[in-house]
């Protein structure tokens, strides 16, 4: 019996077996299906008491806005949240997977999760897929060792930073941070700065838009502020929303049957069960 030529790699990681065939198909003119990208602005910063994460809410499919109000701040652990940019399916899947791994780990150790645990699990997974899992993440949380903020590139590079931005709107948001970030910000100042950075991405980058989501994590406490700011509301000409014209008048209540009603009686035997 001939050996199968396509083997699922037993140890995980990227299987390069189909690459040659895909290459051949693209040369023959096949267009690979495009991914739902999040074309995003995601940011994080460390303030006096912890970490604040922020994200916009637009998901794009090429030039079309696929989701006007998606959630880009993913739950990892009660004290750790992760913003994701890149291919929406990848960010969702990878954060979900690591979140459940963290939960099992918590049961086993009996302790709260640490941010570097999440960081290492994510980094190892993304590196083993050599950048093909297109997820760029901003991971933040407060654990027993203090507040932490990290960025993770799709290739597996991680950075530890006091303030970070990722996504297509990262330059617009970074310009706000570089101009205005200081150490020891209070909670309100931090939220204001994060909202400003996300708004900068929303209004200056075409891949980002709609609303601002914010998540504030401090020691022992977290606040998920969904749609903290809605700077792009749907506007109607009339304040009451859609308004109908003048009252409709009932002119006539008469039902005129168009066809004569005919009763049909069943002929024949009933079906056997």
């Amino acid at each position, binding site marked *: 019996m001939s050996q199968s030529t396509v083997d699922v790699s037993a140890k995980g990681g990227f299987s390069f077996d189909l690459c040659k065939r895909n290459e051949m198909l693209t040369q023959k003119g096949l267009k690979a299906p495009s991914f739902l990208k999040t074309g995003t602005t995601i940011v994080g910063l460390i303030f006096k008491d912890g970490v604040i994460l922020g994200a916009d809410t637009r998901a794009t499919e090429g030039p079309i806005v696929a989701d006007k109000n998606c959630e880009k701040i993913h739950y990892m652990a009660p004290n750790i949240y992760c913003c994701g940019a890149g291919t929406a399916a990848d960010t969702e899947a990878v954060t979900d997977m690591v979140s459940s791994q963290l939960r099992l780990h918590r049961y086993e150790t009996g302790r709260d999760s640490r941010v570097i645990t999440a960081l290492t699990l994510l980094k190892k997974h993304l590196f083993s897929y050599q950048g093909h899992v297109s997820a760029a993440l901003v991971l933040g949380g407060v654990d027993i060792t203090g507040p932490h903020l990290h960025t993770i590139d799709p290739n597996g590079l991680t950075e*530890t930073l006091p303030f970070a931005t990722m996504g297509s709107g990262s330059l617009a948001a*970074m310009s706000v941070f570089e101009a205005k970030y200081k150490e020891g910000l209070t909670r309100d100042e931090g939220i204001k700065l994060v909202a400003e950075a996300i708004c900068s991405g929303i*209004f*200056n980058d075409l891949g980002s838009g709609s609303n601002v989501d914010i998540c504030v994590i401090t020691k022992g406490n977290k606040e998920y502020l969904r749609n903290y700011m809605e700077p792009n509301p749907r506007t109607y000409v009339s304040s009451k929303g859609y308004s109908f014209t003048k009252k409709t008048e009932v002119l006539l209540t008469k039902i005129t049957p168009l066809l004569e009603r005919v009763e049909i009686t069943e002929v024949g035997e009933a079906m056997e069960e």
Partner: protein
Amino acid sequence: MTTFTVPIDNGDSVKIAEEESQRTLYPYVTGTSIVAIKYKDGVLMASDMGGSYGSTLRYKNIERVKAIGKHSLLGASGEISDFQEILRYLDELTLNDNMWDDGNSLGPKEIHNYLTRVMYNRRNKFNPLWNTLVLGGVKNGKSYLGMVSMIGVSFEDDHVATGFGNHLARPILRDEWHADLSFEDGVKLLEKCMRVLLYRDRSAINKLQIAKITEEGVTVSQPYSLKTFWEFSSFHNPTAGAEGSW
């Protein structure tokens, strides 16, 4: 355009036109962003003084903002040699004007229009001047600020930025620019933008000039540096808690 003949085996000679080597295919020595704003008395334009040769910082004393006539300032990012060529064209223009000696002088709107025509026509011949130009000026009390790109896209605005400035400086300008800025506020705003560019643009250097044009004329400042801040506590030992991170 000169041609030269090359004899080949079958006896015929082939005229190899030097066209290919005369077209701009890629830029060599480039300048990075220019940021300019209108303020109360006229226009302020900031640029750094670096000329990069690919990834090397080759020249550190290039003035990328020049006065044109009495009423305008021209700033350029992109290929420096093309910028010098444009300055020559504008010199010829001003010279012609002076020869007429009728008291007329070219204002910023006219120069902007001229540059747009030149850039667009060059791009149509597939031989572009590889620059994004910023034209600012004041004539008869009216300030003017406009931009022309290497493909001939041209427009006027209250604040403009080229190159990386599009991504890093424009969000700040859109947020914080307002009409009738004072000179000090204008310079502060430009410095804010240039500082972010210094942090985040790899081809920017910490040696900048700010040029000012008002009804009275042009002043280009002496080169100076911006103060930068590197003392965040997280920068001191960034990966203390996370080995293997950057």
